Each structure stands twice: as structure tokens, then as C-alpha cells.
């Protein structure tokens, strides 16, 4: 087990409001960690900090031992951090296959010149990307939709495609923002299997935000609970859901 992503004392303020403070997290290879908390607890803010969309005002983030502070999101993707979104953000007008290819493309080695003038190296890489993209779609059972515009897929398939697209960037860490949002019971179960499967197949660390407690306790090995931007509990699923602080946050005080 090697540490991949490490956030220490991470915090961000918007004006006077501390959205997140003192956030600590360590992700190792093959970890599957859940990040839960009531609405507005700062879960998505944590994702935005880890992916470089927001710059933290305090603390540090390290990826494989190197600081990644101040790096732009597209740079972080190249270093191995990928994510999906709470509200699906596929390129809806572009085909399913191209959605995945775009993500693969920008890991390519070929230069601007060779892709503009279509040098031999370009064709070779283009071919291998096509193959890789289709393989990835097969993992998610999406290859039959490959020429559909992404926006025309059924909702559940769009969620899967978003995960496939994130995986195409060849991540070391995958952040899933409410992957089961809007899914029914069966779809959620299917998704749980998929998440477990990709963790094992691609050997990556996964951090997921989720409201569906069944999903979180069902697949996460560790859970971190946020409330008002602070960690109030961290540990094994059973410990966390029996933690009085967590119960209070979710169900309110007894009195």
C-alpha cells in the first residue's frame, strides 16, 4: 500500500466564510473511501480543492509525495486526478465514443504539429486510442451506444459514461460526486458492483461523495463525515454510522 493522495489541514474561505477547514485525508492504492455529510457540509468544495478548481487558502495537498498546490485542473488530470460531477457534465452534443476519446486524446504524446499535419505517429496513436476507447466502453456495456450523442443516452447510462470518461484520463485517484444520484434501487446496486470492479481492475483509489447510505456502507471501506466544513468522524463504516456525533448531525438532537 502506497499513499497516493494526501491532504493535510486543508481549508478554504470564501470572504469571511470558512467553507472547509482542517480537512485531512489519506488515500492509498485500492482504497475506496466515502465522503458523507449533510447538504452544504462542504463535500463538493473538497472535490473542487482536490481537483484544482479552487485553490486552498490553507493546508497542503500531495500527490505521490509531491505538492500539487497551485496547479491548474488540466495539469492535475495529467498527473492522475479524475472526477465526475454531481450534475452530469458530459459533452452532450458529441458522440459517446468521442466523449471518451477526448479524455484519452489529451494524454497523447503527439505534438500539435504532428496532429495538424497527420504524421505517421499520429495515425498510429489515433488507432490505438480508438481501440482503447471501445474497450473501455465495453467494460461499462456502452459500446452499443458508441455513435449516439451522449445527451441521448438514458440517465443511468450517462452516469456510467461519465465514469468511463473519467477513467480514460488514466487516473490514479478517481473522485465520484454522487454517482448514484437519481438512480433507482436496482441501478444503484449495479453501480456498486461497477465501482468495486473498476477499483480492482484499474488499481486506483476512489473517493466518493454519496447520500445513499446503503451504497456508502455497502462498498466503502472507510468513511469520512463532514459537517460545516469540518471532519466530525472518520473510520470504518460500522463505527461511523454508530458514532453519536454522526447520528446527531443526520437525525438531529434528541431534545
Amino acid at each position, binding site marked *: 500500500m502506497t499513499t497516493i493522495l494526501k491532504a493535510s489541514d486543508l481549508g478554504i474561505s470564501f470572504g469571511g466564510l470558512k467553507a472547509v477547514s482542517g480537512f485531512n485525508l489519506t488515500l492509498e492504492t485500492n482504497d475506496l473511501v466515502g465522503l458523507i455529510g449533510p447538504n452544504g457540509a462542504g463535500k463538493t468544495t473538497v472535490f473542487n480543492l482536490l481537483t484544482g478548481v479552487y485553490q486552498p487558502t490553507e493546508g497542503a495537498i500531495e500527490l505521490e509525495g509531491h505538492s500539487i498546490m497551485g496547479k491548474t485542473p488540466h495539469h492535475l488530470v495529467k498527473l492522475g486526478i479524475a*472526477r465526475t460531477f454531481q450534475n452530469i*457534465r458530459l459533452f452532450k452534443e458529441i458522440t459517446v465514443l*468521442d466523449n471518451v476519446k477526448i479524455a484519452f486524446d489529451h494524454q497523447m504524446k503527439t505534438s500539435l504539429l504532428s496532429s495538424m499535419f497527420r504524421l505517421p505517429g499520429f495515425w498510429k496513436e489515433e488507432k490505438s486510442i480508438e481501440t482503447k476507447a471501445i474497450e473501455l466502453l465495453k467494460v461499462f456495456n456502452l459500446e452499443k451506444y458508441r455513435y449516439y450523442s451522449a445527451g441521448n443516452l438514458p440517465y443511468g447510462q450517462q452516469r456510467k459514461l461519465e465514469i468511463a470518461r473519467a477513467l480514460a484520463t488514466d487516473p490514479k485517484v478517481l473522485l465520484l460526486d454522487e454517482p448514484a444520484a437519481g438512480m433507482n434501487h436496482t441501478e444503484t446496486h449495479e453501480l456498486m458492483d461497477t465501482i468495486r470492479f473498476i477499483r480492482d481492475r484499474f488499481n486506483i483509489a476512489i473517493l466518493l461523495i454519496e447520500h445513499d447510505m446503503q451504497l456508502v456502507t455497502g462498498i466503502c471501506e472507510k468513511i469520512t463525515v463532514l459537517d460545516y466544513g469540518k471532519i466530525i468522524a472518520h473510520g470504518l463504516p460500522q463505527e461511523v454510522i454508530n458514532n453519536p456525533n454522526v447520528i446527531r448531525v443526520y437525525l438531529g438532537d434528541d431534545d
Partner: protein
Amino acid sequence: MEFIQQVINGLQLGSIYALVALGYTMVYGIIKLINFAHGEIIMVGAYIALTSVSFLVQMGLPIWLCVFVAVVFCAILGILTERIAYRPLRNSPRLTSLITAIGISFLLQNAFMLIYSPTPKPFPKMVTAAPITVGSLQISMSALLTIVISIVIMLVLQIFIQKNRLGKAMRAVSEDYGAAQLMGININHTISLTFAIGSGLAAVAAIFYCMSYPLVEYTMGTMLGLKAFVAAVLGGIGVIPGAMIGGLVLGIVESLTKAYISTQLADAVTFGVLIVVLIFRPAGIMGKNTKEKV
């Protein structure tokens, strides 16, 4: 025959509008900015081509090479205006960048007036070949070149946008730049590339324009830019094939109006066409009907 002749004239003018309209529509598609300085790029292209012609003649090189000089210069100018004027405003209200674009437009106009003086300058004849005669139809070589080269450029551009990874990155950024960034796409590079292509096309348009109206002056970009903007809106702003179709439609309408209705009414009719199309198809000919979100 007279009618076909007019349609060919219209296609020639329309190709020029289309090339310029592409610049408006691509920039709008990617950063939702109506780049009112785009018309001035045509003027800059024309002046740069004119200046480079005298150098090329001195060096004994063919004068059509001025196209490349103008394209490269305008592409760099396009990248620089985005970098200096629009990028710092990317997250500010859209009106701010719009006003900035108008400011850049004045800046360029006046700078070139200072450099080259307000007197219009003649543009040397680039095409000397005799017109082609088909039956009673006479097609000038410059018309033929304008139409054919424009169509080739548009096809190449369309393939680039659809197939090339940089073209796909442009489409991805225009749909959702946040998500594009998280797919590893460098949005700053992609936006720079868009400005470079748009401005390069404007430079090509400038030279085609000077082939049929061989006078270069510092205000020449204003009306041409405005018409091309109308073409982009007519076709559906943000939609690349729309700009091409809008440009050609506008050119043909203008040329037919001049021939059969009145030369003086030509502009009124072109803008009238815009109004009528927008009443029935508010998003333009090829525009997507986006539903108003409540």
C-alpha cells in the same frame, strides 16, 4: 444568364462574408463573446498584405505570398488581443468583454490610421489571368479563386472540428469548459487556437475582398465585419456550418438586390432578411432551438 452571373457574384461576396462570419461564430461558440474587434482584423490583414507586397516585390518573390504574411500576422494579433484584453475579463460579466471588444476595435482602427494615414491606398492586382467564358457567362479569375478556395477552407475546417483532437477539444470547451478542463484539456491553449484560426480566416477574407474592391482604408473592416456578424447570426451564432450558410445566403441576397431591385437598397434588404429570419427562427437557420430555462 444574367441571373446566374449575379448568383456567382453573390457567391463570391458570400464566401468573404462566410470566412469572416466563421471567426465571429467560433469565438462566440467557445467563450460566448461577440468579438466586435473581429472586423478590424480584416482591415489589419489588408494593410499587412499591402505592406508585405512591396517587400515581396523587392525580394523578387511572387506577390500572392502576402496571404501567408497576413494570415500569420493576424493569427498572432488575434491571440494577443485575447491574451491581453479578453482573458483577464473571462469571469467578469459579458457586457464588460463586449465593451472591451468595441474598445479594441477603435484602438486598431486609430492605430492603423496613424500608421498608414487616412488616405485610402490602392491594392495591387493579384490575379491577372483572363476571365473564363462559359457560353455567355463570364467568370473572373478572382471570383473563381475566392469561391473555390473558401469552400476548400471551410471543408478543411469542418473536418478539423469534427475529427481532429484539437477540434474536438474546441467543441468540448464550448460545451462545458469546466468539464473539458477536467478531461485534461488546456482551455487557454484551446481558446488561443480558436482566436488564431478565426483571425487567420479574416486575413484570407481581407485579401479576397481586396481582389474585387482594391482599396485599403482604415474603416474598411467596419461594414464588412458588421455584415459578417449578420451572416453569423443569420446562420445561427456558435454553429460553424451556420456561418458558412449565413454568409453565402447574405452574399447572394445582396448581389440579387443590387441587380434587380436597387443598389442603394441592398444593405436595407440584407438587414431586412435578418429580421425576417429571426422572427421565424430566432436561433438562426442552423441554430439549435434552445428552450428558455425558467
